[in-house]
């Protein structure tokens, strides 16, 4: 599988079971995400990818199981400990999650004001730099409603990296973008990840993105309601024992039995 196997696990998902009421969506999810990975959570629509991400972010408590960050359990940690863990994360949500009543500058200033010791003038310069990193230099005074969808995704990324996070979470980062913008965003994610030394966890079913940037992945199955594959996506496409995974990764509607 991937070369990251030898490194210690940064995030450990342990026996996580998720359910809405009595309707179990996924059960017994156990896998590791290693330092420096670009890790993709894959699976068909409605299999619980985004819900798993929300469990990892502590937005929804899983029905069973735990998630460990650098060996510390998130769900048995104190509120203060959880908050300090959260400060090391940068998150972009499916629809961006930018505050619509604030300009881009105010959006990015907010976490900097709350959690850093930068002076006002320094914060302004740092915001300019973060916007420049995502190719939005000079757009400080724009409101999210005044820029395009692709720019909003990048602005959300700028806010996510405001605090130089150790882990970046993305929920469908390139959904709704054209192929060029989408591949530019992929490049940007890789560049930022490489230069900041961050770990990336993303939910997506954009195959080009998955093959272009991911080095490790987990596949959640709709039918057996658990994870059925774990590993490098390109290798899974060619060598997975599970027909549905090969089907998913080669974008075909029928299982090609001969390649099994």
């Amino acid at each position, binding site marked *: 599988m991937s070369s990251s196997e030898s490194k210690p696990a940064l995030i450990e998902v342990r026996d996580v079971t998720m359910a809405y009421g009595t309707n179990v969506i996924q059960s017994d999810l156990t896998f590791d995400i290693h330092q420096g990975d670009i890790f993709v959570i894959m699976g068909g629509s409605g299999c619980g990818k985004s819900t798993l991400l929300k469990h990892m972010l502590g937005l929804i408590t899983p029905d069973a199981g735990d998630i460990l960050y650098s060996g510390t359990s998130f769900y048995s940690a104190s509120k203060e400990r959880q908050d300090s863990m959260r400060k090391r994360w940068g998150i972009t949500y499916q629809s961006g999650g930018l505050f*619509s*009543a604030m300009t881009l500058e105010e959006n990015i200033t907010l976490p900097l004001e709350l959690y*850093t*010791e*930068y*002076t006002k*003038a*320094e914060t302004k*310069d*740092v915001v*300019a*730099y*973060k916007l*420049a*990193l995502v*190719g*939005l*230099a*000079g*757009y400080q005074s724009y*409101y*999210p*409603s005044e820029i395009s969808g692709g720019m909003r995704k990048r602005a959300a990324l700028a806010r996510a990296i405001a605090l*130089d996070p150790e882990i970046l979470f993305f929920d469908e980062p390139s959904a709704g973008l054209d192929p060029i913008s989408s591949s530019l965003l992929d490049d*940007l994610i890789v*560049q*930022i990840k*490489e*230069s*900041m*030394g961050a770990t990336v966890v993303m939910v997506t079913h954009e195959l080009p993105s998955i093959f272009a940037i991911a080095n490790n992945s987990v596949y959640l199955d709709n039918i057996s309601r658990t994870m059925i594959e774990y590993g490098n996506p390109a290798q899974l496409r060619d060598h997975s024992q599970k027909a549905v995974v090969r089907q998913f990764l080669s974008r075909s509607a029928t299982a090609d039995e001969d390649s099994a």
Partner: protein
Amino acid sequence: MSTSPPGYELLGESQDESLLALSGAWAQGHSPEPFRTIASQLISNPPHSLTVDGTGITHWDSLLMAFLLQCHDFCRTQGIAFGTRQLPQGILELLDVATAVKPHEEPEETPAPWLSTLDPANLLRRASGGTRDSLAFIGEVTIAMGRLATGRANTRLKDFTAFCYQTGPNAFGIISLTSILVGMILAYLGAVQLRQFGAEIYVADLVVIGTLREMGVLMTAVVMAGRTGAAYAAQLGTMQTNEEIDAISTMGISPIEFLVLPRMLALVVIMPLLTVYADLLGIVGGGIVAGGMGISPPQYISQGMGALSITQVSVGLIKAVVFAALIAIAGCRAGINSGRSSAAVGQAATTAVVTSVVYLIVADAAINIVFQQLGI
């Protein structure tokens, strides 16, 4: 880890080349001199090239990157060649990413002189534009009503009944409270004045006529403007944000028929009923105060019956219908014209309440003048 404060020094290596030597911990908590201090030095004596040397940097975060970016952008605008050496690992990659796209420049916009905003012709044009839009909306609603009357409108009965329920029964609590209290206020006001002439008994007339003609319907309308008008604006504004209104229009369905009519008709049907309820409770509230002032309930009732007439009741009901239409129009129009962000939805709700209260008061005054002239 040494935490010497961040600093920099501008050295002239040769005549045309300058060297900017950075040192110390460039991280939060330590404030270096802002970039503009060297910018002024560089402007007064511009070199051909500027090289940033990072040998002395012990520790860094985004603060250093922000500084380097300013350096880079400054050199680009001044035509100075920018170079680096001995920078800590990772910085060059980040700087490359950050400088890959040129900063966005606002298109030149000549600001209109502020006096021109007071230009009467401009103000008139804007006011007439607003009025025309309002009239156009009322016109569209009227046409939609015509289509409904001939059975050709895309209005669903299910929507209408749902809105009736939202508007009516759900509002009983708040209407009960406000109308009883307003009835009591009217009675207090009247009793104190009338007692001076020994005419306390006429409190009953005052409460009955005041409530039926004015206060019952007006208080109901104000509550409905805040409760239902704002809700309509928020619902339609959210639909605008979610592109639901676009979806309705492109299906060939008129948003006025599908969204505005059921809301407006629900309010027009429910408002008179709520008004009757509010009138009753208002008169009861007046009776409670009158009882406290020594007027017995039979006296209050018999005196009140004398003042009660079908004219007084119908004046209130006519107003209720007019007010309901105005509240629905103000609310729906604010919602349909709302912007496409969540902030715009809040703005639409505010606009709806403010406009409907203004409409209510103007309409109430106008109706009173007309009835006065007609002697009703």
